[in-house]
């Protein structure tokens, strides 16, 4: 077995925590049938999970359909209603410039959601593919990829993005997505590599190899289904982390600028120039939005983790 999967032990570092390596046995024939197991085991994922999932989907739909929804334009200033509380006309009230807060929050969530999901999806593809290969065939490529991921993870993400932005103007959604993908890919790579590694030496993989399965089949039919739960659970946390990072950047005024306000910008508006005293709603609504979105994502990830018996390990 020249290219057989080896049981390389992970070097432990407290730099990043993730989920990898199931404790319970999900190998053997059953491991090939995750689809049927998804619904039957332990009576499903539970009500909380589905409420959270529907909430996230609802938020995404709101953001996607923002321009066709019967809401006001986010930057339209209604001078007859400045700093008003929630009314029938302005459901969440208006800000100090008379802009409708409901509309601002919904339009603002677009940036948060795009930066939350797009880089993580891209990272899942890039990091997932590399992690699956590196975990299955350990060799020089694995060593190099591993070292690169370590180096990339050693950089403080927010600082790096802030500074690159300062020199690489102007900020755009595409640039932000690219930079966030750079942060997300090595993290997802490590999770998927570690999970693959824990399965690559199991009997069912060996059995498949013995029956003459091709590498592509081994990767896609034997290993991938087993890696998916850890990847999805971690990706949800990744989305939450990305949303927090983008929010922090926007709060610092370093995310996408005017006229596209994101949630962090709105919170910053709500804190500036006595707005907290005059109209706390400006900061409260986007804060509530972020809180509910993050709670839903965290609860979903948590539920997936306990459902699939994933344990937290230091990567």
């Amino acid at each position, binding site marked *: 077995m020249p290219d057989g999967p080896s049981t390389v032990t992970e070097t432990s570092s*407290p730099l*990043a925590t993730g989920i990898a390596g199931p404790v319970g046995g999900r190998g053997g024939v059953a491991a090939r049938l995750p689809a049927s197991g998804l619904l039957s085991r332990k009576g499903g994922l539970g009500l909380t999970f589905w409420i959270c999932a529907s909430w996230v989907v609802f938020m995404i739909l709101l953001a996607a359909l923002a321009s066709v929804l019967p809401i006001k334009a986010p930057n339209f200033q209604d001078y007859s209603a400045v700093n008003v509380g929630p009314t029938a006309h302005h459901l969440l009230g208006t800000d100090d410039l008379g802009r409708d807060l409901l509309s601002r929050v919904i339009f603002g969530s677009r940036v948060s959601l795009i930066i939350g999901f797009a880089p993580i999806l891209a990272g899942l593809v890039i990091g997932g593919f590399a992690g699956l290969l590196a975990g299955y065939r350990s060799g020089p490529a694995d060593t190099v990829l591993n070292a690169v991921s370590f180096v990339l993870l050693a950089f*403080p993400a*927010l600082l790096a993005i802030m*500074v690159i932005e*300062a020199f*690489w103007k102007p900020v755009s959604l595409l640039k932000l997505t690219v930079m966030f993908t750079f942060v997300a890919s090595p993290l997802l790579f490590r999770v998927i590599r570690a999970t693959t590694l824990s399965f690559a030496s199991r009997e069912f993989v060996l059995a498949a190899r013995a029956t003459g399965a091709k590498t592509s089949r081994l990767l896609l039919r034997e290993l991938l289904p087993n890696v998916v739960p850890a990847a999805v659970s971690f990706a949800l946390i990744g989305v939450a982390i990305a949303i927090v990072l983008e929010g922090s950047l926007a*709060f610092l005024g*370093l995310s996408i600028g005017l006229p596209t306000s994101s949630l962090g910008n709105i919170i910053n508006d709500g804190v500036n120039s006595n707005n907290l005293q005059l109209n706390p709603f400006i900061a409260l609504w986007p804060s509530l939005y972020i809180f*509910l979105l993050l709670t839903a994502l965290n609860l979903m990830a948590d539920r997936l983790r306990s459902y699939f018996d994933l344990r937290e390990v230091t990567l």
Partner: protein
Amino acid sequence: MLRFTASRLVQLVVICFLISVFAFLLVHLLPGNPARTILGPNYTPANEAVLLKQLGLNKGLVAQYGTWVTNIFHGNLGASFLTKQTVTGALSVAVPIDLELIVVSQVLALLVAIPMALFAALRPNRAFDRVATTSTFAMLSLPTFVAGPLLVLVFAVTLKWVPATGFNRLSQGLGPNLKSVILPSVALAIGSVTVYYRLLRADLIATLQEDFVTMARSKGLSTRYILLRHVMRPSSFSLLAAAGISIGTLFTGAFVVEILFQLPGIGFQLVQAIYANDYLVVQGMALVAAVAFVVVNFGIDFLLTILDPRVRRA
């Protein structure tokens, strides 16, 4: 052990080198003639000469890097052409503020997280544990830019216990100093409490199942003694590991907190420099902050391996 230490040190040096290369190359992301762009409205031939000397821009790329790094090792991180302040000078103002913020917030976080975790782990899944675990889970969804404004709204705007913004140096008295630091520290501590509590609770529950705890119980030792002497010690490794994990969050949080409360720490000065297109200050500060981040992370990692031999063997 020696080999292990050496290999980790090599890693650290390599990463610091890469950070310096990265910080150095930033200037070349600027469009057009970097010297003109950096100087902006302050362009004068004299200023350009100073800048060329600092960055070595008229030489080749490798020689430029050499010039830049040599200057740094001589303690010359450059100076702002806008404010005439040196980066080292700005840092000497900023660093104590960051240190105070981090120390106060971590002490607060540990003071809350350790007793909470002890109580929760002693009776897992009972009322206290459920309340504590649920509330820390909620805190997980409160990033600093959400928690900070809420704290200001409640404690500064509504209750008026502390000022909303501003910083009083320690030289202005301990009372005023703490008053200006306490709210930012609490905002920072929220994230850390969650991390510390969750990891310590899980670890404590696992340790309490160990045979040596049953043994200690059968010897008739008091619960308090067992908790503090037999259980806390092996569980404190995960606390230290958690400290390593929370540094990234702390870093991000500190930037937000400094802007929110107008504390002139590294984050505040860095963001001001970015707003003002003060490129050299951004470059110098980012370099120092990134190296500090990596070194602290490395230090915690290293401490962990010294204290817990299991990590080294793994």
